[in-house]
Each structure stands twice: as C-alpha cells, then as structure tokens.
C-alpha cells in the first residue's frame, strides 16, 4: 500500500489556500446563493404555501430549508465538475509530466486528487449548513445530539461520494481535451440539464413525465433527496407537496451515487492510462 497520494493531496491543498481570491469566492458563493436567491424565493414561495391547507399530521418545511439542501448539492456539483480544470492546466503547462514520470501510480494520483476535492466540498457544505442556520434554515429541527451527528455524517458521506463521481468525470474530460475552452463548453453543456432536471431548487411533481423520469436518475436529485432525508426527516411537506422518504429511497441515493462514482472512476483511470506526454 502506497501513501504517495498524500503528495498530490498536499499540493492541491497548498494551492487551494494560496489563491485567496479563488478561495474567498468559492466560500462566499454558496452563502450568496442562500442569502439572496434563497431568502428572496422563500419569501414568495412561503406566501403561496401559507394559502394552502396544511396536510394533517405532517410537519411543514419552509422553502429556505428545502432549498438549502439543493444549494449544497448544486454547490458541490459545480465545484467538483469544474475541479478537474486544474489537471488540464497541469497538463497544458507540462506540470503533469513531472508527476507522471515519477514512481507514483496513476491510482495514487487519482486518489490524492479525489481526497482534495472531498476536503473542499466538506468545507463548503459546512459553511452552507452553518450560515443557513444563521439565516433561519431549519436543518435538524427537533433532533437530539446523536440524531444530529448521524444526520451530519450521512450528509457528508453522500456529499463525498457525489463529489468523487463528478470530480472523476471532470478529471477524465480534462485529461482528454486539449484546450481549456473545449473543457469549459463541455462542462457548461453538462451542468445545464443536470442542474435543471433535478429537484435541487424546486419540486419535480409538476414536471412533464419524461423530465420527471429523467430526474430520478440524476445524481443531483439523488444527493438532494439524501440530504433532505438526513436534514429534514423522512416525512414533511413543502409548498403543498408531501414528501415521504422510505429506506428504499435512501438506499437508492447511496447506491445510485456509488454506482455513478465507480463508473466515472473507471473512466478516469482508463483516460489516465492513455495519457501521452
């Protein structure tokens, strides 16, 4: 067992904390989503919700909390989807050559890279949860400390698996394309349907059938569902819609994301073994 992946991880983290502007914007962006989009939308959605009759015996969740889970999902989606870009620049400026010429295995490179992505995602997730609670997001309402701990671990686990999945995908694209512009356009093309054909920001109940069907397989939906299950409970209503998460749903979230991660892992390892320097 080699621990050389720590070298890759170390370098990624040094650079993450070095570029203050990138660091600052990546940390402040989710907060801004919550503060502006979240607060504004929740005010109007909650107005509509107030006009609907509450479902008897089911706790009503405000839109901000519903959306908070989606903001976490969206934020880690973009961070990980664009996370592979550093690999592209490493390749472009021949930096990758040094690493690839060393005895370190390709698996170790991918592992170190993945761990750095997870770390960044965890920091962002933590910030959203803490800041969200400050502005009135009701995550973990009525939980005792043990339940809260389990919920937090559950959320971070899902976020970690999800991040790896998209980071590997992004890394595979980065190692394959030649130009940053090419990468940019592929990522934009990918992120659009991922983002909107999901229940990250709004319920999918009133989607056309085909989109509703597709959204079930969207990793972003799987993650948002999982986070809501852990943060808001397995039975709540939001904007008149009734949400019930069964054990099957949460297994589907974990299973689906793990499957997605394994698929992209095999793609990135395949691309890495093909890379010519």
């Amino acid at each position: 067992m080699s621990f050389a992946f720590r070298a890759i991880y170390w370098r990624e983290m040094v650079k993450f904390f070095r570029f203050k502007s990138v660091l600052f914007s990546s940390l402040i962006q989710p907060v801004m989503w919550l503060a502006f989009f979240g607060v504004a939308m929740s005010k109007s959605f909650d107005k509509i919700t107030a006009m609907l009759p509450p479902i008897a015996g089911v706790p009503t969740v405000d839109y901000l909390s519903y959306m908070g889970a989606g903001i976490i999902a969206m934020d880690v989606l973009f961070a990980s989807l664009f996370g592979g870009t550093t690999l592209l620049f490493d390749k472009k400026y021949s930096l990758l050559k040094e690493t690839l010429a060393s005895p370190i295995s390709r698996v170790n490179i991918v592992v170190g890279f993945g761990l750095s992505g997870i770390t960044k995602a965890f920091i962002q997730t933590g910030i959203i949860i803490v800041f969200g609670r400050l502005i009135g997001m009701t995550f973990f309402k009525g939980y005792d400390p043990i339940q809260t701990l389990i919920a937090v671990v559950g959320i971070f686990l899902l976020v970690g698996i999800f991040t790896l999945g998209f980071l590997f995908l992004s890394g595979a694209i980065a190692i394959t394309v030649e130009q940053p512009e090419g990468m940019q356009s592929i990522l934009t093309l990918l992120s659009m349907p991922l983002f909107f054909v999901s229940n990250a920001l709004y319920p999918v109940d009133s989607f056309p059938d085909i989109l509703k069907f597709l959204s079930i397989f969207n990793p972003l939906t799987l993650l948002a569902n999982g986070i809501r299950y852990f943060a808001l409970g397995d039975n709540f209503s939001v904007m008149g819609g009734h949400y019930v998460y069964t054990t099957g749903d949460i297994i589907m979230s974990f299973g689906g994301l793990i499957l997605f991660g394994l698929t992209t892992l095999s793609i990135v390892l395949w691309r890495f073994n093909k890379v010519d320097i």
Partner: protein
Amino acid sequence: MTENVIEVNNLEHKYGDLKAVDNISFTVRKGEIFSFLGPNGAGKSTVINILTTLRKIQKGEAKVNGYDVAKESKAVRKSIGIVFQMMCLDYEMTVTENLEYHGRIYSMTKEERKKRINELIKLTDLESKRNVLVKDLSGGMKRRLELARGLMTRPAVLFLDEPTVGFDIQTRLRMWEYLRSIKKQGTTIFLTTHYMEEADQLSDRISIIDHGKIITTGTGSELKNQIGKDIIYLETNDNKAAASVLKTLESVKGVNEDTEFLRVLIGVDATHILPKIMDMMRQNGVEIISVNIKKPSMDDVFVHYTGHGLREGGTDEKQNEGETAEALT
C-alpha cells in the same frame, strides 16, 4: 572495472512510418557526462523518453542502473532524475515547495526531504529565493531549480534534455559549472544538446546522432583528432585541380569539396605544411585566393561525419551547407 549505468542495445523506435531511432547501441559509464549531440529531430528526445520510461520501448533493449526499462520501470524511475526540455515547474508554488512536492511523490521521508532541499538550494545558489514563487524567478534560476529537483532523490543518473536551450551565454556558462560540480559529486549525467560547444565543454564522451543513428562516439579530442590536427580552408580559382593535387600529399587526411572552400584535413601542424601546399599550387597553375587555418572544432567534426552542418531543424542540407560556408568567411 568501469560499471555501465546505461546500456542500450539495438534500440529502434518508429512513429508511424517514420523511424525516429534506428538501431542504436551505446553505453554510459558510471560517473561520466555523456552527450547526445545532434540537430532537433535527430531522435535524441525519443531516446531520453524511452530511457526514462515515459515512452514504451518498441524494439531493442535498454537498461538503466541495471534495471530493464520495459520490465522494471518503477525501479528505473526511482534511479533517475530528469530535467525536461520544456520548463515544467509549478509557477504558483515557491522554490522549496516545488522541491518538497518532488520529494513527496518519490516517497522520501520528512527528514530526508528537509536535508536534501537544504543541500540542493545551497548547490544551486537559490538560498535567497527559498520562499519566492517560481513565477518571480529568472529563467536561469528556474533552470537551476529544475536541476535541483532532478537531483532531489540522489539519482544514479541525471537526464538533461537540452538543458541550456534559449539561454544567453553567461547563463549557459554558469549552468555548465553547476553540471560539472554535480558530476564531481558522483552523479552520472546523460545529456542531449544541439550545441557543439556544450557537448565539447562538458562531456567525457559524445555520441553524434543524426537521422536516428549514432554516427560516431568518442571523447571530444578523440573525435577532433580523427579528422586531423588542423584544417586548412582554401579558396582557389580551380578547386577541382587543387583537390587532386592535395590528395597526393601524405599528411593530407581528407579533402572536402562540398562548398566554395576546400576543406583540407591535415594530420600534422598546418603551419609547416602550408608553404609546401602554396608551392605545389603554383607549380600546377592553381591560383590561391584565400587561406585560413583552424583547429578542428566540434562543428567540423559534425560536418565531417554527417556531411551537413548542425542547425536547429537540421534537415535542409543544402541550406545548411550554405550557412556553414558563410560562417567560415
């Protein structure tokens, strides 16, 4: 007995139909500086890439530090240091961080890394730049840092691919000094260059490589002696007649008529034989327009063995000859 750090037998490499390396065999002895001298596109980088396991070997056999590059690539990688042709440092990290990263990907322990970084920063005179971002270093300093990085793991052999390309003469001279002191510390160096002077000044042995083939190998002075002691450049009104006269002389080792100058390779001191040559020309009715005597340089060696001059690009022979002739006037 001298130990061979690199052994290459019948190495061949093709890119599609193009034979970049054509049946090359050579050895590099422990502790020496060995150079591949040749124009760009001669196959030098391909050989380096194969020896450093960056490119898969297609045909032939190569051993580095006793390890087979095809079967024991990991052991080979641990035995070598590389300074690539293209600068590849992380510009957004400091001098020590670049070295630190290198030590880490080679799994050096923390103490080893610290000790080695201090030694190398001293060796390459980068002490005042320890915590400076690489993007703020001069070109020469960056190259020295790459040199330091290549030595981080105390490699048995250091590969340098065109180490001073694009540098001014002062920077180049300084780089040579560093390479000599590295050699003194016992590191074997394999370098490729298309600078004659670099090969001549630095190397214990030189292989001249052209069109994927090794044309000749020897020490700088061996190679130069092979083509004679002196070279006389003669410009006459009838080069053909002059050449046939010269060829009768015992001390003339060769006459090259490729350019407007006759290039006469002389086995003895040219200052003694020149009066005789002048006499003979006069007797045969050949009028001498100009004369020039030169000690053979690596340039001449290269022209002698390859039939063309050494230029960046190096494929257009006609043009090269023209330029060589110009350089002589």
